């Protein structure tokens, strides 16, 4: 690796200021599992890594009647096994559990997982000067795109790699972003941006800003959620396609629905047409296959990834089916 300075910040102010002062060549580091890989790969040059591990409150999980607050430095392993999360926010626990391997989950954090860069093989290789790195070509447009996007992509066809983000989207989470002076928060759907909005980044963070925590509203008592992930091998794989579904059900009727898709779009992807279709339906009358088809109705597959359309439809059908029959 090229040399960099590693600095352990003790306060948000210090972290933020250091980052701003060294911009654009500074990065925040939490667990470091993604960022060290990028540096080693030669696609990221950084002068200073500002560690957030020492920030107070960053590793706390606070559960209350209002909901859940998870510090950005909480590890994926903890999220996967925390009783309150497993019981009340199962989609999140399942998404966290599905990430990589135990070794990665013991170190990787919530914040790091949300902010990780794409896994697109053109992006990850220094031998391709692609759009996301400031070049002029998307190498996935015409060929070599079996893992790429089928929804919401125009010029750049990455898929967002975070499992946790998809679950949080379905759970209506809020992301809290901090800098030296203040916090701001936004629905998680607004945290992520597609390449059309910002080609060079996947989220709204400005220099000096970092994710400090994520808040999830407490679901009502009739709510269930699930996260399903389709992979190419049984384990340790990014999603070919993944689905998070949260359904509130009362008196045999779906009263609220939120479906989110992963592995198929440059951002964790909401499908409001599905949410509206499901809301108000009697559980017994839900045609899960039709719901699945509806989820992918706007799909624009590339030369090698049309299988994702059918796969995603099936996954949505399966997830909804699982929840309504629980």
């Amino acid at each position, binding site marked *: 690796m090229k040399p960099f300075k590693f600095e352990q910040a003790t306060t948000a102010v210090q972290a933020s200021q250091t980052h701003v002062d060294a911009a654009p060549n500074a990065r925040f580091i939490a667990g470091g599992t993604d960022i060290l890989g990028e540096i080693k790969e030669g696609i990221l040059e950084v002068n200073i890594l500002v560690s957030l591990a020492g920030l107070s409150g960053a590793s706390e999980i606070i559960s209350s009647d209002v909901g859940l607050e998870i510090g950005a430095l909480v590890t994926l392993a903890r999220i996967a096994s925390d009783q309150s999360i497993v019981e009340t926010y199962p989609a999140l626990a399942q998404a966290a559990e599905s990430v990589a391997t135990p070794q990665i989950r013991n170190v990787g954090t919530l914040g790091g997982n949300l902010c990780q860069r794409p896994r697109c093989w053109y992006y990850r290789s220094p031998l391709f000067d692609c759009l996301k790195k400031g070049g002029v070509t998307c190498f996935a447009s015409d*060929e*070599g795109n*079996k893992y790429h996007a089928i929804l919401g992509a125009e010029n750049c066809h990455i898929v967002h790699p975070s499992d946790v983000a998809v679950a949080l989207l379905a759970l209506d989470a809020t992301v809290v972003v901090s800098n030296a002076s203040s916090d701001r928060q936004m629905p998680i759907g607004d945290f992520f941006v597609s390449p059309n909005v910002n080609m060079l980044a996947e989220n709204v963070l400005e220099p000096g800003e970092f994710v400090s925590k994520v808040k999830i509203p407490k679901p009502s008592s009739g709510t269930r959620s699930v996260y399903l992930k389709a992979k190419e*091998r049984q384990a340790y794989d*990014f999603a070919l396609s993944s689905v998070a579904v949260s359904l509130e059900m009362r008196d045999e009727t779906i009263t609220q629905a939120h479906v989110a898709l992963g592995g198929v779009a440059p951002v964790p992807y909401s499908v409001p047409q599905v949410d509206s279709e499901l809301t108000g339906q009697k559980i017994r009358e839900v045609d899960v296959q039709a719901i699945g088809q509806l989820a992918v109705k706007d799909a624009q597959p590339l030369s090698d990834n049309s299988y994702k359309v059918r*796969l995603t439809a099936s996954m949505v*059908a*399966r997830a909804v089916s699982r929840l309504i029959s629980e």
Partner: protein
Amino acid sequence: MTTFKTIGKSEPRRDLPEKLTGEAKYTADVQLPGMLFGKILRSPHPHARILSINVDAAGSLPGVRAVVTPFDAPKGQVAPDMPILDTEARYVGDEVAAVAADDEDLAEAALSLIEVKYEQLPFVTDAVEAIKPDAPQTRPGGNLVGGKPLTLIRGSVEEGFAQADRIFEETYSTPAQAGAALEPRAAVASWDGDNLTVWKSTRGVHADQLALSLALDVPRGNIRVMGQNMGAGYGTKDETRLGAITAVLAQRAGRPVKIELTRQEEFVAGRHRHGTTTTVRMGVKNDGTVTAVHATTIMDTGAYLSSGPGVIRRAGQGALYLYRCANVQYDGYLTYTNTPSGGSYRALGAPQGHFALESLADTISEALGIDPLEFRLKNHVGLEGQPGERVTPANEVLDTQPVEGGVPFSSNGLRECLQRGSEAIDWGQPSERPESGNLRRGKGMGMFIYRGGAGGRSIARMRLESDGSLRLLTGLMDVGEGSLTVMPQIAAEELGVGYGQVLVTFGDSETTPEAPLTAGSTATFSTGTATKEAARQLKARIIEVVAPLLDTEPSNLQITDDGVEHIQYPERSVSFAQIAESAGEIEVEAAISPGSRDHVINSFGAHFAEVEVDTDTGQVRVLRYIAAHDSGRILNPKLAINQVEGGVSQMLGFTLSEQMLTDPRNGVTLNASFLEHKSPTLQDFPKMQVLFADVVDPVGPFGAKALGEPPSIGVAPAVANAIYNAIGVRIRDLPLTPDRVLNEIEAQRGDSQ
């Protein structure tokens, strides 16, 4: 029924304790005083002439101690088509220059300062394209190695097809598959005057010694290759430029140099299983009798030849020899492309060839209305071998990979494998219906034949040492398959002592005798036979020496765990230590050129898989797997089971998830990582049963035959055939990834509408 002291026992793996504690040293663990770290600069272009290289900045960086470029490298050849460094780069990743520096980060920094001027040349990345006459030329003389295919014939396929009632032909493809051994290859080189010592991952210290001697133009006697524990290779750690480059840097720097490849380099600049496209044509009678087999394989050797000729040959053996047939032909086209080079990955071309052959056998069975098992029981080659006339003169050793007929096998347990394997998986019964509507189950099989036996000339030395220890010395390298454990079992059994009493020294070109590569599943046969002979000789010598000491005839003496004793009067005895004290060290050497003049020594097997296909996600799960093998007498059951299970699991990757992907636009390998080249994990490991046929080979040491590679061969056809049985979709291109399965299901649905 013979009872053995140690043969047939699951003696614990001799080198496992130190591997369990982390004490086992691999090449990257070697530390020498003053050692430098080397790094290699690699071509970013698939085909280019190197016009100039400017190393001024790199060489002047503080801490950089040596640089080598193709313009100043010694002019030797690492292989016939591979100079130590060359002014032409032939694939993305090809070695261009190298540096040695005080540490790795410095070496990396130095690489980034090297300026290379390239002239890009036309390139080709696809083998089928490469053999067309208008393809860009990777080499003067054309892409097709040898200018023509390897053609092997027995009888006449024209005649064979004329006899057929029906003829079937299909084309199948298999991808390049990385060996991806967990240890990236590494080398350490150190000079002492004119003497070079090299520590490296290798499966043949003598072969490496010879290769380095030729490349560097240094007398063989001046080179010592010390084989370290190897983090596996499965055959893929054939010689590359690494050893020579490391040696040159060390010579220039005047200090030891270590180069460890990165994982990405191991993927790209290592060796992998050759990608193939195979067309098989078979003629059959309506009753299922095979009348003709003609297979044609196009195989991609990548930028360098490596062991390509051996692999293209191996790819044809199934077609030539597995089904009893008088009229067969194989045409193998080996072609260069501007992609990473293939090598000798476990079972070489046999898995590729058998995938095609055994898939077609199922297609034929179905068309004729015959059970696939019956088809094979009817047609498999038997003990008597293939019909035809023997061609090899009677007094010459037979090739274990013959084309000729009229030569019997030394043993052939294939039928037993077919019968017992099919019973174990309840072949006659269809799979249980799964509960979910989208899941489908099915069963499939594949059988195979594989050469073993004769490897290169092999020497084993045995010694009674001055302290009374018994030691076996062999140049053989244990590549993780267990020969370090099995060889002393053979020696101990022959000598008549306990397994633990035979010490072993292996893999040092200076102190251990000539051994061939641990390759082609030949270790057991060649070195095993040499070992048995050396033990027999040592036993005879010891008894000869003791006879006068105990004042009796040699025929009255026997060897025990402690020494030698009189058979009738066991109190008249002498210990090994006492023997050594009085007679001195005793050493014998047995050199054998293995092989048989009368029989072909081959291993056989049949694999059976039951799979479950999720027709919504395209995922395939192997529910259970039966691997039935004829490898003669099994010398160490636990090791053998581990070998078979490991080979099967490894090739589930080949079948379901692994492929090296090259971008045709620029020759870049897209997935040179463990994340993207998807090897099986613990979660992918299926329930498996291993069966060994009850065969004792008359030629092999204690009746053993090759086992290392055969498990790799039956997996792809068994699983592909099972998938067909489950969903009625025939997929002819590996790997059978979810996207392929889904696309084929979709296509079939489209066809049937």
